[in-house]
């Protein structure tokens, strides 16, 4: 491992302060909500089967926040879709609270990158959907939905249609909708990927707030390294071709988390380790991006930098 660095004096990402270590000890004592065992997925390609995911195993404890990160094409989305039951594994199995699960169900709620709100339903009606599917009557469902809407701070918009909401508000509605159905685990597939940087930061803070106050376990897919370090208890790092677990990291950044910690040594150490795993430096190359073969098309003296 390359420890000669540009940022000196960073601690090892594995060193944990006593409080953080204690937190992880307690976390691991909690019951396992989701137990993924040797999960694999093969697709039929033109030249025989392609292995998208191989032998992926991990456990999520109750009220844990687990991030899955990996380079593009490593099968992150396939993994979460299989957990949600929207795709099926070709090998291995998944246990939810010790029982094997097949196919989609309300015990595994999901928040998608593309919001997927029902456009014909108002915010309240969207949040009511899961409750109504469970057979709750309209009045009760709507009063319960209102509480969730309040939790995500959208009370002013409860009668608005999705087409009238901004991206951030849509995703908050989607989170409320998923939580209202009372899932055992909340699956989030790059939920903030389509948002602008500012809104994304807001949503991250917001999600942590919700997670602190609601009894929910979260499995969160992202390709944003900072997001993973900011949010997660543990980070599952996948590698591509085929998608395999590379490492499960315990994030040493103490809680409660905030964006202010982004420059703390623990944060930076974890961040750097992730960088090494996901963007490995090729032999003989510096970190510099290879120069593009661009010819000069401007006049001499007309320089911009």
């Amino acid at each position, binding site marked *: 491992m390359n420890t000669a660095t540009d940022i000196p004096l960073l601690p090892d990402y594995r060193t944990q302060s006593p409080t953080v270590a204690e937190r992880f000890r307690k976390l691991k004592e909690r019951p396992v909500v989701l137990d993924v065992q040797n999960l694999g997925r093969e697709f039929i390609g033109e030249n025989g089967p392609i292995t998208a995911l191989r032998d992926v195993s991990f456990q999520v404890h109750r009220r844990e926040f687990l991030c899955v990160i990996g380079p593009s094409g490593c099968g992150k989305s396939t993994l979460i879709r299989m957990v949600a039951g*929207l795709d099926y594994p070709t090998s291995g199995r998944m246990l939810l609270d010790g029982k094997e699960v097949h196919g*989609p169900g309300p015990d*595994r*709620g999901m928040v998608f990158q593309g919001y997927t709100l029902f*456009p*014909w339903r108002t915010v309240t009606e969207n949040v009511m*959907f899961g409750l109504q*599917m469970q057979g709750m009557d309209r009045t009760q469902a709507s009063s319960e939905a209102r509480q969730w809407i309040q939790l995500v701070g959208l009370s002013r918009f409860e009668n608005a*249609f999705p*087409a009238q909401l901004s991206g951030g508000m849509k995703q908050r509605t989607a989170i409320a909708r998923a939580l209202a159905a009372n899932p055992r685990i909340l699956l989030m597939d790059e939920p903030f990927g389509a948002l602008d940087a500012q809104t994304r930061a807001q949503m991250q803070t917001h999600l942590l707030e919700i997670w602190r106050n609601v009894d929910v376990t979260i499995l969160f897919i992202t390709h944003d390294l900072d997001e993973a370090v900011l949010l997660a208890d543990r980070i599952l790092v996948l590698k591509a071709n085929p998608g395999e677990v590379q490492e499960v990291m315990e994030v040493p950044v103490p809680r409660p988390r905030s964006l202010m910690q982004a420059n703390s040594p623990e944060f930076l150490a974890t961040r750097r380790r992730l960088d090494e795993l996901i963007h490995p430096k090729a032999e003989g190359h510096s970190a510099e991006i290879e120069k593009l073969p661009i010819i000069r098309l401007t006049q001499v003296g007309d320089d911009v930098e």
Partner: protein
Amino acid sequence: MAPALPKINNMPKPSWLTVRKDLSPRRHTALGIVAFLLPLAIWCLVSYVPFIWHPMIKIEAPGDVTWLKRGQLIPREDFGKEVARLQAESGHLPNGSRANPIFLPAPHAVARALYTAFMTAPVLRGDLWLHESLWMSIKTIFWGFVISSAIGLPIGILCGSYTAIARITEPFVDFIRYMPAPAFGALMVAVFGIHLEPKIAIIVIGTFFQQVLVIANTVRKTEIGLIEAAQTLGAKRSQLVWRVIVPASSPDLYNDMRILLGWAWTYLIVAEVVGVSSGITFFINQQAKYRNFDNVYAAIVIIGIIGLLTDQVLAFVGLRVFAWRNPRPSRVRTYLVRLITDQYATPLIKIPQYKPVVTK
């Protein structure tokens, strides 16, 4: 209170032909009207300006030509020959004016026919008045379309939702779809008799099979993400169909139905000649037999007007029913709210706007 700032309108006047850009409401309406005025203008031009077409001569005085009668229409060439012949024989020349063929009456004749067709009693006793014929046609269409939709809509939705049902239905539906509905005419008369029933049956046959396929295809276009989201929220099979797929595709289904209703109208004319000719078709054929082509045009125009009005009403209703697609506050409500709440209410009377003063 701060003085209201003068409004400055610096927006460039948009070009009429900008690719995929909405027109201003005023232009939208104006072009819609022109769309109707333009063909009407061409019709007027051809009808009232003699030297554009007018290939016939309407005889006013037959002169010495024995086979001509007053009011007869003959081709200009033939008339010219007769005139030349009589000039050579120095007889009385026939007299006439240029006219269009009988199948192209002038707009005013059709307009008059539109009025008189409703007001004139039918020639034969027992025949129907025009409005009665129309009502009969509308009844035929209505029942044909309702029966077809009552079966076709649910089947189409099921086909679009479940691949197995689609597979067991669509190949055969596709097979029948290519059989022309009027081909079933004789059969339907044998089954249902000679009155309205076989005609309704033909409209059903003409509409139903197309309907199943069109509806199924629209339903199939439902965004898969919505279905997946509903599944992770606990929606099961039938809930997915009736609580997700149907509402998600309802605006498109509604538009499909509008188009299919138009198709039902095209089947009407062939359906109505089956068995005892009835409705507007009977009226048209009867008038054509008497060579009252102004009445024929009047009847065709009426069908067009009914179709256009129905479609416009349905489009308007659709915009209201599916407001979630393009939610915008009602203009009336916005106006009233502004009127009560602040001083920026749009005044009913237009106040001349300040022009920005440009100082040099």
